[in-house]
């Protein structure tokens, strides 16, 4: 089979030894790559995940590319990382892009599996088949940007791409991420903390080989057509304003979270809009390798924090801006820079600081517990200092926030759990809970926790295709179909910004076949997506997940929105239960959210049917 390298690297950090594993055709056809390979290997390598401390040497850290990485496929240069998450205690998963995945595949590897823990800080150098664990003592304590520069200098070649953790990952902050090429992150689930727990500072890769594809002429023609479509209307929004274009439209729809999700509009939305950002702060628009869209908008602060540079997308902008009451692009640019260089996820960070601000304003978090910081909404200096402390686990406040919003609210108590906005321990992204109710169902049933990237179910809400302020049984099917499709997209792995240019699942299957030479239909590839989703759910069931965990936070049910356009919007419990039942029914799961033996056997998940499946 083409497209795949056919092998992956196994690195035993405890012993300092490496070995090679094989990717066979059955693995390729059943699990595609990326998300699918991650689900398969995580399930197999952690047979009793409930017993595994995510920050212990017993956890594994798994990196996979997809079959498209390193080929000329449009927007296909992405890689994924998996582990049991220290933030959520369940299936942990993140995807990043840039050049890293292309180098990875060109070096001749589909993936890397890390086990154990190194005695002292190390980084992994992969130079085609030459693989070496190198001393990283001099890198420990350095920011992600410094680490990247220092490794390139040490290896004497700028063409190495580097993925690293910052001081937050070293300190095992539960929100820690992994950064490659300065501005691209494996953001969610605290996988940077797993890297830190293994004393693994970075992975540096250079590849000089070719990635063979099955039908080069067919692929060139197909990709030329896709690239032309990528210049069309479906992706215009990404090319011009980038995802920050969402600020104003979400504000008009009352679904822009502000003040820790207390509201769905923000009075300074214009000041932090994509339109304003493009006019005043964007210095550069860049693309990942092989991407015809180019969505990444790099900002430079103008007056405050002059010189601060960061790549600002909608999620970072909304969570560190409106959700913390911040109406200054300079402050937001600096806040993202702090998160990126010290190494934490901007979504989770903006969410947990917003929660702390609400606690502070309500007198639940004292000034002493806030390390003397005046943690009011809208106080930019307070936001930046809170973020710095969070990343470095400094003081009472830093240590509290470093746990993530679920655990922090449990530690603080005093009723603060009621407005900790998360699901399964993962902080909610910047889609309001009550004014996009299909989206909320999609977030809440996701395998990763509150996840905006697993079903795209917000689309029917914002397009007016459903009553977004109500729920019913039919929404379950929308989420189910979206999840299966997105599991395919995340396994191939292609950028979701291209989803609008594929006319059908048949086209995704055709792309797969042109690259790999393996026969695949649209129906088969969607079935693979369903298999992958179920496998990850089986892992979660082993971690104790069931229906009780598939709910949005209390605020969604108990605090009606005050904003004009969506005044009084709240999720009705009985409607949510009905929608959840509808979702489980489509999935072929029990009423308690457990995959049935019958469904698992239908998907070829025989071992899982025996270990996890319940009778229908």
């Amino acid at each position: 089979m083409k497209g795949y390298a056919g092998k992956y690297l196994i690195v035993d950090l405890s012993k300092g030894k490496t070995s090679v594993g094989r990717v066979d055709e059955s693995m390729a056809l059943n699990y595609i790559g990326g998300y699918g390979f991650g689900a398969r290997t995580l399930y197999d390598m952690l047979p009793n995940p409930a017993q595994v401390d995510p920050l212990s040497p017993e956890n594994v850290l798994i990196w996979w590319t997809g079959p498209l990485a390193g080929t000329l496929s449009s927007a296909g240069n992405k890689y994924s990382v998996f582990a049991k998450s220290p933030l959520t205690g369940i299936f942990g998963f993140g995807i990043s892009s840039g050049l890293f995945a292309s180098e990875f595949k060109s070096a001749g590897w589909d993936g890397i599996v890390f086990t154990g823990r190194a005695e002292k800080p190390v980084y992994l150098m992969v130079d085609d088949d030459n693989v070496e664990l190198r001393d990283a003592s001099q890198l420990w304590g350095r920011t992600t940007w410094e680490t990247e520069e220092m490794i390139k200098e040490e290896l004497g070649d700028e063409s190495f791409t580097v993925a690293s953790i910052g001081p937050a990952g070293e300190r095992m902050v539960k929100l820690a991420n992994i950064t490659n090429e300065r501005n691209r992150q494996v953001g969610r689930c605290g996988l940077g903390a797993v890297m830190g727990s293994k004393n693994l500072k970075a992975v540096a890769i250079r590849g000089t080989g070719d990635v063979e594809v099955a039908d080069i002429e067919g692929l060139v023609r197909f990709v030329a057509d896709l690239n032309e479509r990528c210049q069309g209307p479906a992706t215009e929004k990404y090319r011009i304003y980038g995802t920050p274009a969402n600020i104003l439209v979400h504000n008009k729809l009352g679904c822009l979270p502000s003040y820790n999700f207390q509201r769905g509009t923000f009075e300074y939305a214009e000041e932090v809009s994509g339109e304003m950002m493009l006019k005043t702060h964007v210095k550069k628009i860049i693309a990942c390798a092989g991407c015809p869209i180019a969505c990444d908008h790099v900002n430079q602060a103008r007056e405050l924090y002059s010189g601060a540079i960061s790549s600002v997308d909608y999620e970072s902008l909304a969570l560190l801006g409106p959700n913390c009451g911040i109406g200054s692009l300079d402050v937001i640019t600096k806040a993202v820079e702090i998160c990126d260089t010290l190494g934490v996820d901007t979504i989770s960070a903006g969410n947990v600081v917003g929660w702390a601000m609400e606690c502070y304003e309500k007198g639940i978090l004292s000034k002493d517990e806030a390390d003397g910081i005046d943690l009011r909404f809208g106080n930019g200096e307070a936001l930046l200092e809170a973020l710095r402390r969070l990343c470095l686990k400094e003081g009472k406040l830093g240590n509290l926030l470093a746990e993530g919003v679920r655990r922090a609210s449990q530690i603080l108590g005093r009723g603060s759990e009621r407005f900790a906005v998360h699901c399964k321990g993962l902080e909610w992204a910047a889609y309001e809970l009550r004014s996009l109710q299909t989206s909320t169902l999609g977030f809440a049933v996701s395998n990763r926790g509150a996840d905006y990237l697993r079903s795209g179910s917000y689309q029917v809400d914002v397009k007016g295709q459903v009553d977004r302020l109500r729920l019913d049984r039919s929404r379950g099917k929308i989420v189910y179909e979206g999840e299966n499709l997105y599991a395919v997209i995340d396994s191939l792995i292609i950028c979701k910004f291209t989803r609008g240019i594929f006319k059908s699942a048949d086209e995704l299957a055709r792309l797969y076949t042109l690259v790999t030479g393996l026969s695949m239909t649209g129906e088969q590839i969607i079935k693979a997506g369903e298999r992958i989703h179920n496998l990850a759910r089986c892992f979660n069931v082993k971690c104790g997940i069931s229906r009780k965990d598939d709910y949005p936070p209390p605020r969604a049910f108990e605090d009606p929105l005050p904003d004009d356009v969506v005044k009084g919007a709240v999720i009705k419990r009985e409607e949510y239960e009905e929608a959840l039942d509808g979702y489980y029914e489509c999935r072929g799961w029990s009423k308690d959210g457990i995959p049935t033996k019958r469904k698992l056997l239908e998907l070829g998940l025989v071992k899982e049917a025996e270990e996890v499946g319940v009778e229908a």
Partner: protein
Amino acid sequence: MNEIRVEFIGRFRELFKVKSISFPVDSSISLLKLVEELGKKAGVDLVSHFLSPRGESMDEYSLIILNGNPVDLTRLDEYDVKPGDRVVLSPSVAGGG
């Protein structure tokens, strides 16, 4: 107040060169008619931003929000817009990378 408030976001703001306008009307008109009239004002085929030549929804590209609610673009002629209403023309939501 015989006016409809029309706000522009993103590319529509560039097209009309303003953030919003007041569109005078005597009585209610269809949303489709409003879009056609706005297009004439800007000298562009504005309907083509929302509907394909075959009448299919272009909601991957653009949205219309009427009094805070997104509308079904295939039914633009079925929505009545009356004085005092607020209409927003916007690019569609861009999420999920």
